[in-house]
């Protein structure tokens, strides 16, 4: 998170507080359904957009008030949600990352969505891309409703790319299908970049960003990871090493800066001093504000099919011991409203999960959003386990052990084996969920 988005987040929080209390006033007279308690982890520009969407819903006829509680992203959010759910006094609606749902659902922390009820409000199974729907169903139960997918993509500076002659006649980055091609392209970008670096990737101290990069290329190579409870982590060692070596070649001091942290990588790209940047789509708002000329694309599939590491913000029903029928109905209605109006959510860079929005001509006009919308066919989520998903210990541990690999202090296999040992430790213990 940049300082800028922090500040925006603080502003957004203030605004949320204000609307929260207004909503509370407005609903006092509403038809019996009390305020819906809604917890989420969306701060910064995302939080502002969410508040606008929620305000839109509460303004509709007969809608109850909605009281938003915004908590910081990361482990503490999930801890609080788990505690509230296990106590049976959970909020009526919450946002979770879809990749974390498989860990939560089996423990009875989440209640099931009613597809028929959603259908009443015009939301059907067919409205979601297949890869996303698969994430929404856990143990044959509709456990979460995805709002979006937010993949890890490649940003590029259009001025630099133009000067380097790597833009096609359509103004988009030329396709690259082999590692050599991609490296060549990155070097050409670097030749025209003030810093001399074609690529920016921040990894120091950021386990999640290391995992996103690794997962993207490992999947391209055909690698898979399985985490069977009570067993050991299953993976393809050869592909792990190949992936690590490829990533090292991108931060070799020639193509990219060898020792970036997240903030530095962002500032390199934001100030127009590097040609391209690996990052999540959520950074696009900050870059737009900076005024840097950029476009975005799915990370080219240099080893095969492209892959886009992703997670999805999704709606869940935290377990309540005795849910109020009328409230549950309102929650279904609200989620349907948010999905149908998620075009404004796309403004923040996320790809709406609700297909009718993405297929709408209005979405095609959104640039650069429509340029990476094909990522929904290549989404890769974290392997399911109770300790994986955005902001999870899985990411932290990966960063702990692999950072030394990227910093060239240990060999890829040494770092990886240390990581695997810690994951095997977790697998050996019974799941606490």
């Amino acid at each position: 998170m940049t300082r800028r988005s922090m500040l925006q987040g603080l502003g957004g929080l203030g605004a949320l507080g204000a609307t929260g209390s207004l909503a509370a006033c407005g609903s006092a007279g509403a038809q019996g359904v009390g305020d819906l308690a809604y917890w989420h982890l969306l701060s910064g520009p995302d939080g502002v957009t969410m508040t606008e969407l929620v305000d839109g819903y509460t303004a509709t006829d007969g809608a109850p008030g909605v009281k938003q509680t915004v908590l910081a992203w990361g482990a503490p959010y999930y801890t609080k949600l788990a505690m509230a759910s296990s106590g049976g006094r959970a909020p009526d609606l919450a946002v979770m990352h879809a990749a974390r749902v498989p860990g939560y659902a089996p423990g009875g922390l989440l209640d099931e969505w009613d597809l028929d009820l959603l259908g009443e409000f015009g939301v059907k199974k067919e409205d979601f891309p297949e890869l996303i729907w698969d994430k929404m169903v856990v143990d044959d139960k509709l456990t979460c409703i995805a709002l979006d997918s937010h993949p890890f993509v490649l940003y590029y500076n259009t001025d630099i790319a133009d000067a380097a002659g790597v833009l096609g006649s359509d103004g988009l980055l030329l396709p690259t299908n082999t590692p050599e091609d991609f490296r060549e392209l990155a070097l050409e970008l670097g030749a025209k970049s003030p810093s001399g670096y074609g690529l920016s990737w921040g990894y120091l101290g950021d386990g999640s960003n290391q995992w996103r990069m690794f997962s993207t290329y490992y999947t391209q190579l055909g690698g898979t990871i399985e985490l069977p409870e009570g067993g050991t982590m299953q993976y393809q060692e050869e592909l792990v090493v190949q992936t690590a070596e490829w990533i090292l070649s991108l931060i070799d001091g020639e193509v990219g800066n060898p020792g970036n942290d997240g903030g530095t990588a962002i500032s390199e790209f934001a100030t127009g001093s590097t040609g391209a940047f690996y990052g999540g789509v959520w950074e696009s708002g900050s870059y737009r504000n900076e005024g840097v000329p950029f476009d975005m694309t799915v990370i080219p599939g240099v080893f095969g099919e492209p892959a886009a590491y992703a997670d999805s913000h999704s709606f869940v029903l935290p377990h309540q011991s005795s849910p109020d029928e009328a409230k549950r109905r309102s929650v279904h209605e609200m989620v349907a409203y948010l999905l149908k109006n998620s075009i404004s959510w796309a403004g923040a860079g996320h790809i709406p999960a609700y297909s009718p929005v993405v297929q709408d001509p209005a979405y095609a006009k959104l640039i650069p959003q429509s340029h990476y919308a094909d990522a929904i066919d290549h989404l890769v989520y974290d392997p399911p386990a109770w300790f994986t998903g955005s902001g999870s210990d899985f990411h932290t541990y990966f960063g702990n052990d692999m950072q030394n690999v990227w910093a060239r202090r240990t060999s890829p296999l040494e770092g990886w084996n240390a990581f695997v040992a810690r994951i095997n430790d977790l697998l050996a213990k019974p799941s606490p969920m």
Partner: protein
Amino acid sequence: MTTADGVTVPRTSPRPNAALTGGPISEGRRRRRRAENIRGWVYCLPFLIAFGLFLIWPTIYGLWMSFTGTSLAGTKTGFVGLANWTEALGDANVWTSLANTAVFTVLSSIPLVLIAMGLAILVNVGLPGQWFWRLAFFLPFLLASTVVSKFWNWMYNPQLGLVNTVLGWFGITGPAWLQDPSTAMISVVITTVWWTIGFNFLLYLAALQNIPDQLYEAASLDGAGRWRKFRSITVPQLAPTTVLVLVLQLLSSLKVFDQIYQMTSGGPGGDTRPVLLYIYEVGFTGYRLGYASAISYIFFFMIIIVSLAYMVISSRRSVKA
């Protein structure tokens, strides 16, 4: 109650002649004393309730939890005996994080005592603008740990940070301070020293100003030089303060959490993770409260052993003296 000559007198009669003055008075006094006692307890009650509720009960409940498989997510696996304890004793992460806590405590406590004393002496020798130095040394202590962590993180930033920029002027390429295993812990220690030294500094300054001037005057008359006065007057006079500062410092260093959580989250590779952070990870992001409790108690017992050792050593020393 036993008097000096070994005669045992009843507890209720504080004076030997009380029995002679008859029952009614002592009866009234007893009643009054009981009323006073009750009033005393009532005054203490708010504190006792809070103390019991938030300290005694959690301590007992935590001990119980360490014998169960309690999970934050509400799933209870009941009594598991010593399973958590044996697992914790065999968990390499417990030992490395305990070692990290110990290393941090040693690395931070020594400068936090010595430098604080040095600063206090420098300010006390009559540097002009004493108020300014006092303010400058104490001010960082008033900052929230989040603020301190955030801006030291930026100062340590390998590419944009102040530290490496300044080193760059001299042609030195600085490391990635917080991400390099060889510099991460020392970087956190430097931040901690800068942040918290003000408190110890203030204690020392107050102690210095309490040393009577006559001692120095008398020493001067006897021809003692500056160094001699420092060694034979200042240091011994500061001894009680040093013990106090050291004990407070050890306690606060042992429970280090905030700045490490915020600056490195225990990285790189767990090299700066103190035991409290590991307990937090196991319990609050790993959901295993029972196991986390067991580690907490192991840490608790270690602190008790260290404290007992300290008490034995210091009492032996005072006996010798």
